[in-house]
């Protein structure tokens, strides 16, 4: 078993009075891809935002590498090596591709990918390096959004629905990239509604319904029970 990187322990989250997460416990180890699968409103994005420190109305604890993140602001968490790739991709329209890549501070010199290494992994970004963020296709934006935290040296990527709104051929490219970066020691927590896509990239899955983890299983079990699980989730 690889080294445990992220531990979320009995986390509850609230939007005002409403409870969106109930005692969620998940973990991600180094070099592992773990998913959160569930339908809209299940609390997936809130969980990612809570881990990042952007959603503050929470109870329970989150730890990275055994040290607690409780009370740490989002910028401190980013500097500890958590990289957030939001579902809107978070590309700065006024900046070029390369400026977007160099925007975040390098949080870990040893883990930081050089621009050359980024362009090797994402050749399309090299072609588009001087393009403003707005001129990119959805797939290119997604790649830029994933490349940015790697450039900063994040050890854990929080990917929020990277396959959303992309053509199947692009989705499979994104899948290949996730497998590639995983093999280079980066851990990924992936939020997905696209179950088929999730099963091609992940090691383990957590099924989320109404803010609770209803099932945790490895990819083999997940694939053999896909239909049943989907019905269970109402997807």
């Amino acid at each position, binding site marked *: 078993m690889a080294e445990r990187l992220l531990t979320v322990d009995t986390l509850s989250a609230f939007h005002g009075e409403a409870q969106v997460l109930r005692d969620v416990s998940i973990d991600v180890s180094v070099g592992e891809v773990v998913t959160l699968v569930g339908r809209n409103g299940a609390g997936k994005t*809130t969980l990612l935002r809570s881990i990042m420190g952007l959603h503050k109305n929470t109870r329970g604890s989150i730890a990275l590498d055994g040290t607690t993140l409780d009370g740490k602001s989002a910028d401190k968490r980013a500097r500890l090596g958590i990289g957030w790739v939001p579902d809107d991709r978070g590309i700065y329209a006024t900046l070029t591709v390369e400026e977007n890549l160099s925007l975040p501070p390098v949080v870990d010199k040893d883990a930081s990918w050089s621009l050359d290494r980024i362009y090797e992994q994402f050749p399309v970004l090299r072609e588009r390096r001087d393009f403003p963020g707005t001129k990119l296709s959805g797939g290119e934006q997604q790649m830029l959004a994933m490349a940015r935290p790697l450039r*900063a040296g994040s050890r854990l990527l929080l990917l929020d629905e990277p396959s959303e709104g992309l053509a199947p051929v692009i989705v499979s490219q994104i899948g290949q990239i996730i497998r590639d970066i995983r093999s280079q020691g980066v851990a990924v927590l992936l939020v997905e509604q696209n179950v088929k896509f999730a099963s091609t990239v992940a090691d383990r899955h957590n099924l989320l319904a109404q803010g609770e983890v209803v099932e945790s299983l490895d990819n083999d079990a997940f694939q053999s029970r896909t239909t049943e699980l989907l019905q269970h989730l109402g997807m």
Partner: protein
Amino acid sequence: MSAQLTETTHVETAASSAPDRRLNPFVRAGLLLLALLVVLALPWYIYPPVAMDIVAWGLFAISIDLLLGFTGLLSFGHAAFWGTSAYVTGLIAIRSGLPFPVAILGGAVVAMLIAVPTGYLAVRRTGIYFAMVTLAFAQMIFFIANQARDLTGGENGLQGIPKSFFGIETVETDPFYFYYAALPLILLGAFIAWRTVSSPFGRVLLAIRDNPARARALGYDVERYKIMVFVISAGIAGLAGGVFSVSHGFASLQELVWQTSGKVVLITVLGGIGTLWGGPLGAAVVVLLEDYLASSGFNGIGIITGSIFVLIVLLFRKGIWGTVADLVARIRSRGRTPGRRDA
């Protein structure tokens, strides 16, 4: 979701700076040269003290643009920095007899010092609440200046600020030469603003303006950046306020009232935010208009400037600069791509 909503309720400035950032370097150099020529020629065509007012207000507006256009912060208390520097500059000049540029630099430093606690408290809030905190601080400074009569002269203001300039008498007595002696301070302020926005620091400011939550998740301490740019902006406002008070030879409570804070925001929005060019343009329009109306003996100046402001905001939503820049861009792109008929 609620967190996200509160995070993004800052002043929306759109991507108004995008076209300017992509300006052709030749066009940019040409514009800078033209601006420099205009600024140098100004006192030949305009009564020199009025010319000085234009560039001082122009720099003051640049300090607002740095916050509003590049960071998404609306300060409604910048008179505090302009006015404090006006008084401090005056006090240094009167009591020490030092050359006026030294006095002005001293005023700007004090403006920056008081901006530290103001900024520290204000940046914890966004949008209208940020504006209210800055306004409250400015009112406090106004109150203190009004009460500390021994120091500030209370309602009489600070009279007889000398233009000491290394014993060079023409500068000290002739506003025409004084303009050229003071201009480097204005250009210094503009240069600091330009360096700030075109540095990696400025890129982080844009990131904060476009989406503070995202900038934080990238690893930037958003509050610290806001405080830093707030202090830089206060220093620039201080330079402008110091030049203004030495030019007029007095500092009055007028420099600290909330209307002054409002006027500089008006000038900045009028000229167009997010480019640094708009502020000086707006300043030229407003100062010249006020000067013209004042000399015409008409006493409803506020009505005229107010109406013009409303008109410009309604007709040119990006301000004078933004609208002209858009027009030029549209004409140029039309020239480049042939019309539909050819297709």
